């Protein structure tokens, strides 16, 4: 509880706790009363307590066997089970009142091990005794240490707080001062910080010199009232108060363990001293997050009423406290400091103050600009480690908030023009993928031009990274769209009259621009990199997002891949790419079919006819090649004349890309052939085309994990009409949709 915030809200709970306690203690006292009457004779511990509560003042202590016996009895109980609240109360009162002089005092104090809680009244009474009686200094110190040790176990703190001023008066005592400061540190609330107290402490400081305990207490004062006091804590002094709990520590833990109590957390001070070591190293520490400091200068009119109740963010130590004080948290003096703690980030997510966000953006933009664009002290090249950490933090913050900051977006637009494509690549690409939707009118200059340059001048790995990054960007845009459209129950055909400033058609334009842009990059990239399968894989990832825009994200937009992507993927030598292409085509089909259904229902909903045509063209090509062993290009944009193909000298060139002869599948066909006809010496792959082995072959392929192919075949190809005979020549007319029995449901309209 020591670390918990001293807030007025906790008062009530403290009070109720206390009343429960007093009730409970009343009852237990009553029961104890009855039992005492019965057991008075038999329980030596009760007798001992009775002795200490009733012993007359002035009874000599030395050579007093009765005292010795009773004390031993109490000690025995204390070190085994701990003392009950009443027992603590009695013994503390006995010790501090010096009824038998000061000699048994220290011994009594040392055995005050609470079994459960320490009654607040006992502590308050003891503190009062502190002024009345002349205790030896060592005993006074011992008592203070005891209070600090059991502070967390004191049942309530309201009465202790009520005598704050009284406790404060002990700071002038040189011996007690360190302990009093610690106790005050634990008790201080905003209303306790007063000018006269600050002056007293400063006076003490000038008397005692630079004492850490004074400084720590004053630093807490500074947190509450920065307008009264200011200080800077040297880095060597940052350990916090010394731990004063040693005399009781082990015994207390033993008692608590025996009583099966939750071991009270040792008094740990949540004492945040700015870590200066990092900033010392560098002359301009742009990349250091500012520390959480409260606002120094308050608005004069606000100061009176509202600011009294505000809680500085620095004082919030747990999520529970954050929830409790959500409505009255005071923003820190420097908004950038919120990025430093996860707790503050939770709060940042709820901040609606435009000015606060603007402050944060100024700081963030400044930091990024200084470090990466102005490079006034060498920038990221000079301290890559710090830059890396900073960007990682920024990324995790953006990830947490699920959106970027507009200052970092603005920075990215500039930085892309000077980026070499390798400096901190994963981080920069990460930031890039967080960029929100850009209007289609500006997307080219801001994004495409610099990226195009980078893409064509860098390595294969950069190309893959960029395609992946743009895929993430697209996913985020689409997710935004779907979340927004769903939550506000916005009809997707509605536009321009909503409160947002980007219309649906504007959004569609931007998405379309992005998809076309990636299409261009991918086409040229595949050529440059010789259709590298790694690059192809990232490109297919992208189109897996694109093909599902309508069904997954509710965006009435379907964009087909360009020929430069489709054909390389189809002619790829690895079966995985062909399988994924088949899957993508399958998803396109599902999307287009349901979009078509939607079109009939919803007014104004429209998918370009051109898209259907492109889809059909690819679909027919795919089916003809894989199925009908017929390489024809319906309404082709690319067309090779048969004469030219014949010149290549490849026999039966038109069958080269059916499911059997396609370079990606030929090894499967061979394997299948061996399994199917184990005895055969000469391999004739064409024999698989017989209708029965063909079906088996398909089954065989599907068991090899080609799920995309399976989806495609089951949805696009009419299973019942299988290849009749050779099937090579008699289906040349299959490019006409509908007439080919092999294609289900032509989509062209």
């Amino acid at each position, binding site marked *: 509880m020591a670390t918990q915030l001293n807030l007025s809200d906790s008062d009530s709970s403290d009070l109720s706790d206390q009343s429960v306690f007093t009730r409970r203690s009343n009852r237990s006292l009553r029961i104890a009363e009855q039992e005492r009457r019965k057991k008075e004779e038999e329980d030596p511990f009760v007798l001992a307590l009775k002795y200490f509560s009733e012993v007359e003042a002035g009874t000599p202590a030395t050579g007093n066997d009765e005292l010795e016996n009773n004390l031993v009895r109490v000690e025995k109980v204390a070190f085994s089970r701990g003392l009950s609240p009443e027992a603590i109360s009695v013994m503390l009162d006995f010790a501090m009142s010096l009824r038998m002089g000061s000699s048994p005092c220290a011994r009594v104090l040392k055995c005050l091990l609470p079994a459960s809680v320490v009654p607040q009244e006992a502590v308050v009474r003891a503190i009062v005794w502190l002024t009345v009686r002349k205790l030896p200094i060592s005993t006074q110190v011992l008592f203070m240490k005891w209070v600090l040790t059991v502070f967390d176990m004191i049942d309530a703190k309201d009465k202790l707080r009520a005598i704050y001023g009284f406790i404060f008066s002990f700071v002038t005592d040189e011996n007690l001062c360190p302990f009093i400061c610690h106790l005050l540190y634990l008790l201080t609330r905003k209303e306790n910080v007063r000018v006269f107290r600050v002056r007293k402490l400063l006076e003490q400081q000038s008397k005692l010199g630079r004492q850490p305990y004074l400084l720590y207490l004053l630093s807490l004062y500074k947190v509450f009232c920065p*307008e009264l006091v200011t200080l800077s804590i040297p880095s060597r002094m940052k350990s916090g108060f010394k731990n004063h709990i040693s005399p009781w520590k082990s015994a207390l833990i033993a008692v608590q363990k025996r009583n099966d109590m939750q071991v009270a957390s040792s008094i740990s001070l949540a004492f945040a001293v700015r870590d200066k070591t990092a900033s010392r190293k560098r002359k301009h520490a742009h990349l250091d997050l500012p520390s959480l400091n409260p606002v120094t200068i308050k608005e004069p009119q606000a100061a009176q009423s509202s600011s009294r109740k505000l809680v500085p963010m620095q004082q919030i130590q747990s999520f529970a406290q954050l929830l409790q004080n959500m409505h009255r948290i005071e*923003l820190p003096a420097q908004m950038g400091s919120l990025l430093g703690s996860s707790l503050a980030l939770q709060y940042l997510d709820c901040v609606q103050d435009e000015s606060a966000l603007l402050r944060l953006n100024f*700081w963030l933009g400044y930091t990024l600009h200084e470090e990466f664009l*102005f490079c006034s002290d060498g920038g990221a090249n000079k301290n890559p480690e710090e830059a890396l950490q900073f960007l990682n933090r920024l990324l995790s913050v953006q990830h947490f908030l699920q959106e970027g900051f507009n200052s970092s977006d603005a920075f990215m*637009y500039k930085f892309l023009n000077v980026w070499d494509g390798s400096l901190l690549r994963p981080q920069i690409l990460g930031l890039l993928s967080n960029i*929100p939707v*850009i209007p289609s009118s500006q997307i080219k200059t801001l994004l495409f031009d610099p990226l195009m340059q980078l893409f064509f001048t860098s390595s294969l790995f950069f190309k893959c990274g960029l395609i992946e990054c743009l895929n993430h960007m697209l996913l985020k845009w689409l997710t935004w769209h779907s979340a927004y459209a769903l939550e506000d129950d916005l009809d997707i055909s509605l536009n321009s009259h909503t409160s947002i*400033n980007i219309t649906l058609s504007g959004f569609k334009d931007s998405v379309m621009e992005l998809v076309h842009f990636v299409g261009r990059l991918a086409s040229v990239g595949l050529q440059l990199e010789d259709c590298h399968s790694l690059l192809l894989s990232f490109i297919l990832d992208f189109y897996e997002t694109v093909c599902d825009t309508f069904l997954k994200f509710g965006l009435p937009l379907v964009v087909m891949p360009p020929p430069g992507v489709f054909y390389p993927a189809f002619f790829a030598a690895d079966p995985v790419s062909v399988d994924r292409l088949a899957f993508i085509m399958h998803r396109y089909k599902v999307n287009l079919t349901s979009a078509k259904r939607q079109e009939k229902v919803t007014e104004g909903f429209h998918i370009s006819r051109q898209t259907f045509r492109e889809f059909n063209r690819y679909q027919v090509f795919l089916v003809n090649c894989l199925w009908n062993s017929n390489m024809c290009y319906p309404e082709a944009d690319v067309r090779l004349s048969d004469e030219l193909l014949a010149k290549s000298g490849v026999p039966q060139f038109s069958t080269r890309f059916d499911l059997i002869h396609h370079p990606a599948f030929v090894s499967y066909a061979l394997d299948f052939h061996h399994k199917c006809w184990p005895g055969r010496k000469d391999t004739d792959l064409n024999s698989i085309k017989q209708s029965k082995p063909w079906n088996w072959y398909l089954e065989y392929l599907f068991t090899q994990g080609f799920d995309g192919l399976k989806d495609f075949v089951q949805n696009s190809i009419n299973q019942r009409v299988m290849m009749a005979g050779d099937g090579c020549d008699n289906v040349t007319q299959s490019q006409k949709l509908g007439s080919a029995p092999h294609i289900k449901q032509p989509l062209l309209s």
Partner: protein
Amino acid sequence: PHSGVVKRRSKSQSYRRSIRTCFGVASGLGLTPALTARRMNTSRKAPRSQNITEKVKPEHLELLVKTEWQLSYVTPLYQFRHTQLKSYSRQLSAFIAAEKQEGLAVEVGGLQNTFKVSFSVLQGLAETSDDPETVLIQVQSKPMFARQEDPPKTVWCGWLSCINGNPEYLQSLPKDFTCLPLFCSKGAEDLSSLVKSWLQRTFDCCFGPLDINQTTLQWLAALWTNCHMETNIQNLKMIWTLPVLPPLQVTYTVDSDDVLDLWRSTRESSAEKSREAEDEVCIDFSEVTRFMQGLMSHFYRHFRVDLSAGELNQVSSALGSAKVNGKIKISSSRYLISIFSLLTECALLKMPI
């Protein structure tokens, strides 16, 4: 939304905010700064001799001229009030005292015998109604072994200003922010950084170095030359460094009348078309470029050294001097305003958003 009241923001609002901050319709500043990249003005008014003494107190002017200022840019100050300067003085005094004696707490408003800070308004420098008044900060200290009656000495001085700031930018800021983007300072480096760090913590702003780049130096050379029509600038001196081994530094000094002749001839060709224009004389950057080219080709003809391969590091005349590392000295108050308008523009260009 300015009350700081916290509500759970639904994601739809968040989406809208993202959209809004991107397209900048709702909040003024959002006008997607990146989308509309600010550029340096390509044309500006020729400086006219001003009798600034009518507007600015002579003791203030005395402070401003004939000292070399180190320039920085500052992002807008949050919650800065020109009415609270007294309180700022107390705070900063205490802050400096506390930082100077680490580990010793200092009462704010207590009597500081080492450093005394005063904030004051330097009236008269603001040109337009959007410009906030200039703020002057002075740190005074008594020398260690000074006699009792010795007056405290000013050991550090700095001022925050905005002169002819871009009105669009200034108006786009919410009213909690005060934009004083140009910070000039002189004095010990450690005091500069203490003052900056206090301002940073108190007004949540950021300081960055403001260098006077090539373009600005060229502008200054042209503007000062133009002043020779009214005021004698004696001569125009430029220092170039050339990237050769060993590094070559060229000091190029041109007599004021000659340089004005060159300037006039560059102006004439373009002046015709704008001759009919009103009495406000405007200078275009293309003229500045041509003027510099003229100077460089003259140099090449004589010494066979092409200055355009090097870097202009310093420009000076009788009116003042400016260095590429952000140090400027103004020797005559007559053209103060136009020089600082130019510098304010440079500082605003550095704003991250």
